[in-house]
């Protein structure tokens, strides 16, 4: 009896393990865990979080993990929008970095007017946030019209703002580089007296809203349906043009929020260097989450995990004192491996191996 029970237990464990490894999020989560483990290996104190004091004497949380989560904010928010755009339009928006520069420029202009060192804000921060989001939405709508109405390839359509965006951001500030008063910095750093970095709170809010939207509306189903088969979708009463447009507008809104956080971090914006090549990191986050860049089905949780993975990787390479110029090469190598092991060819290769090893194992048992 006990033997039988044992066998059942091991069987159950085996099938549970199998279900886990089969899960779509297995590889993204496993890789993030693996990266964290390496970090712990390099620096045993990696996971520790402590309460310290900043230069102003306010309590703040300190720790590598906190830094990673904090710094990943823009990436996570943009990855959420990019996931939807990828799913519906079967392509990517490469202009997100440049449009963040536009949003940053608009926010600085609203807050500082045409002064370079204002002592007081020219407008309330909520107005700056709303106008920043409006600028982001306008960029998203522009891209969205080109893609959905004029059927231009997403990468080609967004190449326009990719090229022009950073200059537009500079023009928005009237060619100046103003620095906003430090009270604007609370949103990209800490509110005095509150130890958790504000960007982390903003991330939590954005992720929660995304969760609610995906649960309470049909955005997910419609986006998937249009991305998989837009002809069929339109015969089922959907309007593929509108849905594709909508996903670009949502990404625009994400750009607005990300630009706001980014501008607040140092209270100044250099449109030509702000979030350099973030568009590639965002697209990679989507891919790392196990999403096909060819559109269709998507997994939002996967993209968010992907964004944190990229941030962990970036910070790890910095800790290891890898030359900043060489960081992209390391990233590229690791990402190639990661994306390759998620392709169907490699997956089926491994699952065959597992089957064969199992067969031989059971053979062995029987013989004994």
């Amino acid at each position, binding site marked *: 009896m006990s033997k039988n029970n044992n066998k059942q237990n091991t069987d159950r464990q085996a099938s549970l393990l199998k279900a886990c490894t089969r899960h779509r999020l297995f590889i993204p989560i496993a890789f993030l865990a693996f990266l964290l483990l390496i970090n712990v290996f390099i620096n045993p104190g990696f996971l520790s979080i402590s309460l310290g004091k900043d230069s102003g004497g306010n309590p703040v949380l300190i720790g590598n993990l906190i830094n990673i989560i904090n710094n990943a904010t823009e990436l996570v928010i943009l990855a959420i929008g990019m996931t939807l755009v990828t799913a519906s339009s079967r392509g990517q928006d490469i202009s997100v970095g440049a449009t963040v520069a536009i949003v940053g420029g608009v926010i600085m202009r609203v807050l500082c007017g045409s002064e370079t060192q204002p002592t007081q804000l020219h407008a309330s921060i909520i107005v700056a946030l709303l106008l920043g989001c409006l600028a982001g939405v306008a960029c998203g709508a522009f891209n969205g019209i080109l893609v959905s109405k004029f059927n231009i390839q997403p990468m080609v359509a967004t190449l326009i703002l990719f090229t022009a965006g950073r200059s537009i951001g500079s023009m928005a500030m009237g060619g100046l580089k103003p620095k906003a008063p430090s009270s604007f910095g609370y949103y990209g750093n800490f509110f005095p007296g509150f130890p958790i970095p504000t960007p982390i709170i903003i991330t939590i809010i954005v992720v929660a809203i995304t969760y609610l939207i995906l*649960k*309470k*509306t*049909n*955005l997910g*189903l*419609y986006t*998937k*349906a249009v991305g*998989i*088969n837009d*002809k*069929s*979708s*339109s*015969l*089922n*009463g*959907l*309007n593929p043009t509108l849905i594709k447009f909508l996903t670009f507008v949502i990404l625009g809104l994400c750009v607005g929020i990300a630009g706001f956080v980014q501008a607040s971090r140092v209270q100044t914006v250099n449109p030509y260097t702000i979030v350099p090549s973030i568009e590639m990191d965002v697209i990679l986050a989507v891919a790392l989450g196990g999403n096909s860049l060819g559109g*269709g*089905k998507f997994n939002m949780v996967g993209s968010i995990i992907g964004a944190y993975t990229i941030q962990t990787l970036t910070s790890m390479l910095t800790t290891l004192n890898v030359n900043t110029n060489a960081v992209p090469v390391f990233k590229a190598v690791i990402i190639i491996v990661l994306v390759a092991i998620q392709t169907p060819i490699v997956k089926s290769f491994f699952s065959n191996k597992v089957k064969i090893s199992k067969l031989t194992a059971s053979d062995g048992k029987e013989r004994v």
Partner: protein
Amino acid sequence: MNGGLIIITIQDTVLTTRGIYKSFTGVKALQNVDFTLREGEIHALMGENGAGKSTLIKVLTGVYTKDAGEINIKGNDKPVTIKSPQEAQKFGISTVYQEITLCPNLTVAENLFIGRTNDLLVNWKKNNNRAATILKGLGIPASPTQQLSNCSLAVQQMVAIARAVDMDCKVLILDEPTSSLDENEVAKLFTLMRDLRDRGVGIVFVTHFLDQVYELCDKITVLRNGELVGEYQVKELPKVELVAKMMGKELGDLADLHNKALTDSDDAKEAVIEAEGLSSTSGIKPFNFTAHKGEVTGFAGLLGSGRSECVRAIFGADKVVKGKLKIKGENVTVTSPIKAMKKGVGYLSEDRKRDGIIGDLSVSDNIILALQVMKGFFRPFTKAQAQAFADEYISLLGIKTASADTPISSLSGGNQQKVILARWLLTHPEYLILDEPTRGIDIGTKVEIQKLVLKLASEGMSITFISSEIEEMLRTCSRLIVMRDLHVVGELKGDEMTQDKIMYTIAGGVSQNV
């Protein structure tokens, strides 16, 4: 097989094929096909879906290599093997496809000569002059320096033909050249084709317009299911016999089955759909159509006769340009499918793979999709509701799937079709259009779907059923709208509904005067 006595004189035969076989994984596309083309004739190649027309053309033009058989071309002592389209051109076989394969951004002259000169240096002045001569000789109204995209579709077709003719083609294959042309353009094209025939070119003409065959052609070869049915002189083959041969029926075949119970007088019943002079951007001629409660109506006709286009206009899938539509007596303008759906119309589309399934989505998402879209963006079904709907219809229709979460693309064709059927049944339509619901699915599922259609109608649903299989239409429909060449040419009901009558109507019916 009894195609009359044909005397073959070797001299004027330009192309013959004997015993051509070609199969693709598991599908026999051509079996023992003979085809003979003589100089100076226009030869129609006819057949329904899957008959093997395009396969034969692709074998002749070197796109496919034949599995077995012989191809003889005038001027070659031995049978030839055509390995590529370039080789086909060397043998004098040129093809003009339905979609123009020229370069629209080049001029007419450039299109005539591109890829044909070996010289590195091109004398365009000389070429333009030569082009002018060719165009004038064939009576094509275009100037050599005109950009091709500025010419009408018919002229573009003609330029493609001119290019072929100038390459000394002996055999000219025209694959559905008239399907996107209007009547005037067709007339111009026919003048050119007759002219070429008189010069001794052998022309293979593939079309699904019966009237054009009888207006223009000398001979007809009919294929069906990859096999040769026969070769006929146009003059000796009445239109109705051609229809019968294409459908694979004999005239006078008495095996007509149909549901007499449904042929009661249905005029008394309430009309669900009333279309008056409806036409759409798809090119169908204005048609009248009424569907009553509890009635199964059908659109009969050959491939490309406009069956799907009629129902797509009712559903708002194509843009309606003319006419009135009443749903349950109420005047409506359906500009998009969602409007028709909200009025209680459902449409199972003809091409399941392209227009029906959402491949990577689960069976349950595929089932709820249409109802969900009708319910609205902000009111999604919960997972439990979706599961319940899916379970209900999976057991009701006997859909074989591992679970409701399985992607629909992994199901068999018949089961995929049942899922799409479930999608529309779930919306509880008052008028359901089933466009080729049984194409490419197993015989068991076919019968199940036919039975289901009759059951739904007896419960009061109005259904339009379209199928290429005439028996199936007779078994399920109580009234048939007959179509030819984008016109409605007749309406049959009760005892008139026989295979013979349908075929006679397709061949000779007079178009609706709308």
